[in-house]
């Protein structure tokens, strides 16, 4: 039966080429615009570490005085002071834990002028906790960090750029005019969004950092964090003892029991700090990775707004398609009358018009895919930090057709209902 309906649909398309083309084009424009923005939104709000994100938690404390709070809307500070980060780190209450800050480093090589790139100053658990895979060598130990060893782990793209992709473990890299020994080279590793650099001053998306340095070693070599905030006046020369927040602390907690244990540990720690007079409020935060991304609104407002706009555009296109389909099907009242008189049931008429709408949806979806690919190409030309990452994957490909089909069937429902309400007798008389 479906084959017959599709044949009828094709005949009607041929009779009304302009109107059909118009409907397909309208739907395709709407689908193209929505798919483009949806693909970007999906990339930007994705899960950076899908199989591990539920085990990773970001820790927040509040060292701010009550009468000068961090934010007027009572948000917790998004960074941590060195003292607190080290206290929590050394307590070793989580399965793994790492403190980190972002930095800009000057890298020098013999072939070219020195250049700047991003770096992470962090502690030894970073690689195992975030599952950063090594190509050569490995990370550093907690002891290396404490002894301020001048070692560095570099990213694959830096290894390609400076050493042509060869095993560079054991060689020296000049960072900020000091020699660091390379002990590890990462495989390609760039989770998106860059959850751990969020609000530490690094980019939210992009290729990732070039170098990873032990926190204490980097600080001893004079490197500073990209972002610092102060919660009280006073000496800010030595960040380790200054009343400043500049570190992010992540912990790995494998299950709910570990999480509630860590929660009570944090509550105890915060109360203890109040008792010691360091804090005025014993508030704390423990949010898992996706909650953290959500609460920090990592997706740029522009992108969310564009998605909203694209979907309102799709809605307009759908209303337009409803109108055109309706115009088309009411013009065929005679044909419907004849089919009904020959024994087609109302359901059959409804199915016939839905099949026609569905076919428009499929063709519109195919054309919409072309528009979406063009839209994504346009986005890749933009200067945004996520631009180069935007691609259509298999899932979104299937989603395009599904959305086109759903949109066209929704749009076809009203005209099809009107069509099946046609009474055969008057139509036959007037014909």
């Amino acid at each position, binding site marked *: 039966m479906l084959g017959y309906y599709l044949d009828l649909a094709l005949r009607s398309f041929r009779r009304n080429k302009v109107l059909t083309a118009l409907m397909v084009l309208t739907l395709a424009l709407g689908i193209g615009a929505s798919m483009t923005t949806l693909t970007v939104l999906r990339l930007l709000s994705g899960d950076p570490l899908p199989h591990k994100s539920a085990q990773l938690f970001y820790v927040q404390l509040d060292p701010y005085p009550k009468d000068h709070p961090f934010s007027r809307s009572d948000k917790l500070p998004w960074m941590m002071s060195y003292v607190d980060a080290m206290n929590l780190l050394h307590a070793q209450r989580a399965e793994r834990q790492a403190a980190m800050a972002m930095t800009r480093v000057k890298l020098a090589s013999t072939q070219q002028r020195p250049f700047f790139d991003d770096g992470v100053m962090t502690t030894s658990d970073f690689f195992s906790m975030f599952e950063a895979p090594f190509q050569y060598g490995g990370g550093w130990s907690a002891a290396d960090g404490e002894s301020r060893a001048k070692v560095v782990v570099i990213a694959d793209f830096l290894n390609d750029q400076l050493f042509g992709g060869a095993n560079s473990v054991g060689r020296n890299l000049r960072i900020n005019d000091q020699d660091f020994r390379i002990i590890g080279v990462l495989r390609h590793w760039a989770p998106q969004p860059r959850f751990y650099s969020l609000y530490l001053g690094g980019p939210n998306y992009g290729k990732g950092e070039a170098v990873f340095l032990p926190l204490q070693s980097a600080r001893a070599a004079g490197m500073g964090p990209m972002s610092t905030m102060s919660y009280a006046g006073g000496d800010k020369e030595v960040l380790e003892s200054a009343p400043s927040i500049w570190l992010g602390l992540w912990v790995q907690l494998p299950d709910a029991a570990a999480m509630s244990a860590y929660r009570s540990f944090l509550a105890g720690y915060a109360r203890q700090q109040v008792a010691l007079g360091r804090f005025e409020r014993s508030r704390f935060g423990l949010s898992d990775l996706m909650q953290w991304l959500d609460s920090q609104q990592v997706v740029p407002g522009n992108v969310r707004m*564009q998605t909203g*706009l694209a979907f309102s555009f799709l809605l*307009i296109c759908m209303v337009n398609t409803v109108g055109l389909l309706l115009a*088309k099907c009411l*013009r065929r009242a005679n044909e419907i009358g004849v089919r009904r008189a020959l024994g087609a049931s109302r359901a059959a008429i409804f199915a016939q018009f839905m099949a026609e709408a569905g076919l428009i949806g499929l063709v519109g979806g195919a054309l919409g895919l072309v528009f979406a690919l063009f839209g994504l190409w346009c986005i890749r030309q933009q200067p945004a930090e996520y631009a180069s990452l935007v691609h259509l994957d298999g899932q979104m490909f299937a989603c395009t057709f599904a959305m086109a089909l759903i949109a066209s069937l929704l749009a076809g429902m009203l005209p099809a209902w009107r069509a099946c309400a046609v009474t055969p007798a008057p139509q036959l008389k007037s014909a």
Partner: protein
Amino acid sequence: MEIRPILATLPRHRIPALLIVLEIALACAVLCNAVFMVAQCVIDGRAPNAIDEQGMSVIHIGGLDSQLAADSVARDLAALRTLPGVKAAAAISDVPLGPDATFNGFTSQPDAEATVNSSVYLVGKGAEQALGLQLLQGRYFTDEEYAQGELLPSHQSASHVVLINRSDAARWWPGQSALGRHIYSDGTAWTVIGVVADVIAQDPHFSGVSGKYSSVFFPQRPSAELGNYILRSDPTARARVLQQAMQTLGKLEPGAVLEGKTFADVRAEYFAGSRNLAWMLVLVCVVMLAVTALGIVGLTSFWVGQRRRQIGIRRAVGASCRQILAYFQTENFLLSTAGVLLGAVLAYAINIYLMRHYEVNRMPWYYLGGGVAALWLLGQLAVLGPALRAASVPPVEATRTV
């Protein structure tokens, strides 16, 4: 034009009429908000800034050894000032719309709480000429003040003097002279020695509306904090001057990372995101209006076709072509009116939603007026074709296919 017969026939094709109303309403709502946002982007990108933007170039210098930075800065500036075409050169911590923003809160009372993110500019000797600041009151820094300027361990300026923007002067001491008064932060005080025309913030997107024109200038002697060189030249010569300066610095500072741009590029890059958004909105609006117009054409043609016989009868009993034309135009006008009224309500609702969730201002009424007028016009244009076809229906049509 008699509108009663039109109203009487509308219920006979309720659904197509409702669809036209809905389409116009949606288009109107999206159009008003989109045009408003485009206008915001354009206004944003053209934010005034009282420095010589056209003649200015910026070279960011990074990776200098902080111990030797003082000598490097002095030596580099001396070399830059000798270049042909350079009218003035100076070092500054960051430029307006620049990437290394430093914010601090200042107050006009010693213990008040700061509510505005002010951009802190540490400026080296000669910066007033290199930036092209416009002094409104008071004076610039003296050589002695420049020589004494440095950063305290608390990251506040050790200098006791400050230059402020006109907006800040008006905010702190409305209706009074700011000269000789003090501003405070974390227990440190500075004396206002001059007021300049408004210089834009380093990162206005971060500082927010309140901090957009809140800039304070402190004198600073050559040091590692002064990571940007600004060059002022004739606007026509700026590209050549910048190129020469990059070559000169490249030789003087082989270990440093240099990045040179004209200020026009700094501005263009800072606003690139909102410019792209604006172009996308314009594109969507154009396509959306085209789709809406085509929808109106499609539906109206349909019911013109449906009513050929009625039109023929009207023509046969004496209606002129012009009256038939007017009939369809008035009908469209009525539907458009219903659509734009609904659309105006929707547009306001969207605006209120956006205000709540994004940094969008309240939409002034004239955007609504503009959107309404645009859709009225669009409706009339779209209906013209089908209406002309209706008007050309001959009276003899009345006698056919009875």
